[in-house]
């Protein structure tokens, strides 16, 4: 028996549920109850979360109750993200409502899920080993991530590595891949069949669109995997793709800096991060052309 997915709900019914009691979605490894009267949110969910499991409205435990609702003061012009009545962010334009939901969900995970160590990084897997790419915005991390998952890598997350400190494994948290500005067109050309959600223009990050997760990555969301590579990517105009080994102690510090909550974990957190670095090959990676980059990653030797 296969579980019902969001695709099984007609759009008008989905919109009605979103506007009232909300819909419960399994967004591995979490469950969220999502509410929103804003049409663009329903549109984004229907497009990008079609294959995610839909859970019954009654009797379901949800990790987070989230909503994106119209702001009170400027009806229909601004929207706010709510987590259970809490409003952690300033309002955004209604056109950004779906992207706001995505950012809000990230905040829920990094702010509350302290049984895991969360690290700001794009995360993919191949041959059973995980590639972790921690990087600041503007490094081309998401573009690279999208290109790799369209070329045989499994997506674990484009936004955060979830390290289970007890097992040393990375848990998949596959969610739509966030792309910005020119990257949207670049990836569209690379994969004409990729499905994109609503375009949010003029956000603080520029124009943002999300790309649907490949079915296979979602289907394998319950399979954690062992870290294998820790790579710090940097987009450098006109530069050839270049992989340079990086000192592990330095890689460790940068990994820790990109972690949202390693400080909460104390010594076990330190040991888990150290183990991750110890079993991963560490590199700096600079590139300007995606095709070259993909080739380099295809040839990455498997770590011990």
């Amino acid at each position, binding site marked *: 028996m296969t579980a019902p997915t969001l695709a099984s709900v007609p759009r008008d019914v989905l919109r009605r549920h979103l506007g009232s009691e909300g819909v419960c979605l399994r967004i591995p490894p979490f*469950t969220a109850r999502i509410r929103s009267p804003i049409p663009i949110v329903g549109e984004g969910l229907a497009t990008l979360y079609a294959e995610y499991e839909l859970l019954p409205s*009654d*009797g*379901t*435990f*949800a*990790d987070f*109750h989230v909503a994106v609702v119209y702001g009170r003061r400027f009806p229909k012009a601004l929207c706010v993200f709510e987590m*259970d*009545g*809490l409003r952690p962010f300033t309002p955004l334009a209604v056109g950004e409502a779906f992207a706001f939901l995505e950012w809000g969900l990230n905040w829920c995970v990094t702010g*509350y*899920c*302290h*049984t895991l160590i969360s690290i700001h990084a794009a995360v993919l897997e191949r041959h059973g080993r995980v590639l972790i790419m921690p990087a600041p915005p503007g490094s081309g991390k998401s573009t690279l991530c999208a290109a790799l998952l369209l070329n045989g890598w499994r997506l674990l997350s484009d936004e955060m590595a979830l390290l289970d400190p007890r097992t040393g494994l990375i848990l998949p948290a596959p969610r739509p891949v966030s792309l910005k500005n020119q990257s949207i067109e670049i990836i569209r050309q690379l994969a004409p069949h990729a499905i994109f959600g609503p375009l949010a223009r003029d956000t603080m990050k520029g124009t943002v669109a999300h790309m649907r997760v490949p079915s296979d990555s979602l289907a394998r969301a319950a399979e954690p995997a062992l870290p294998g590579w820790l790579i710090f990517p940097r987009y450098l105009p006109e530069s050839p793709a270049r992989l340079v080994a990086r000192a592990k102690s330095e890689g460790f510090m940068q990994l820790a800096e990109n972690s949202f909550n390693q*400080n*909460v*974990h*104390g010594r076990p957190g330190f040991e888990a991060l150290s183990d991750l670095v110890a079993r991963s090959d560490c590199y700096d990676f600079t590139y300007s052309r995606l095709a070259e980059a993909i080739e380099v990653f295809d040839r990455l030797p498997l770590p011990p």
Partner: protein
Amino acid sequence: MNLPAIDLLVDALLAPTRLTQLDAAQWDLLIRQGRNADLLARIASVCTAHALLEQIPARPRRHLEAAAKLALRQRREVYWEVEQIADALAPTGLPVVLLKGAAYAVAELPAAEGRMVSDVDILVPRQHLVAVESALMMKGWVSEAKSAYDQRYYRTWMHELPPMRHFRRGTVIDVHHAILPLSARWHPSSEKLLAAALPVAVNELDELDKLDGRIMVLAPEDMLLHSATHLFQEGELAHGLRDLVDIDSLLRHFGTADAFWQVLVPRAVELELSRPLFYALRYANLMLGTPLPESVVQAAVNAPGGRQPGAFLAFMDSLFLRALRPAHATTSDRLTALARWQLYVRSHWLRMPPSLLIPHLARKALTISR
């Protein structure tokens, strides 16, 4: 009065064995309410004490564990912070008298179990305020109040310095010279509180042997009275239920000694704090079932500020029993926000002459809406 149930949350704190029978929907509600009330880590510690954590379904359990991890880490770092403060204040020759969460942590009281504590509060004699402030500044703490208005407001009317944040660690210290504002109706003597403070032997710190009895906490009855004052006179209701849980925990812990009950009410009278004590006892007992000796309840009623006309008490009940609930849609009715607001205004009446009331409230409202 017909209020939405918080039975789940209170049950989880008092009779956790029933937690093993909750269904998914009840867990959903409990985790939301507990998170909102800042009590998830407390629930986790109660469950651990009853060896129940393993029996809780994995999905809600990880939220309890996550909160417990955070609380544990905060507690660990509070020890370090206290040591840094003691170092910084060494030149003043003053002891470090800790209040609230940091005090519960270093005194290793049950109230510290699963309690979040991010800031450190200390009490110093008013005449040494300047020396304490400069000693802290020497070691990297910087005042958080940026505007001249804020500085003047704190220094003229408040019982504490503006919060000071350490420039490198980002940690915050609140330096109090009294437990109620200067402008308040009552003036509990800080000298009396400081004179009765007790040194704590902090295992976590004493390996260094250099603190030498300089870390102190208020005497048990004063600690309880301060907690009651904080909640019932200061209008700090954002975490009302959590603060009531503190009071409940202190009463249950210190209450095992008869001497505590004998001195509690007389001390409250001496410090002009019998009114907040009356409320603390009343609402801890009503909401959390805190056991109280009948003689103490009677003494509190007979103390100044204790006996109140029935109608007035019913009114206060209707305010407090609403406001002390966690601010969450499932625990609130339509009057909750109003009750909180009335109590907020009440606390301002209690701590400031009415002529001051408008400018400060107006300014706060302006700041929020900006």
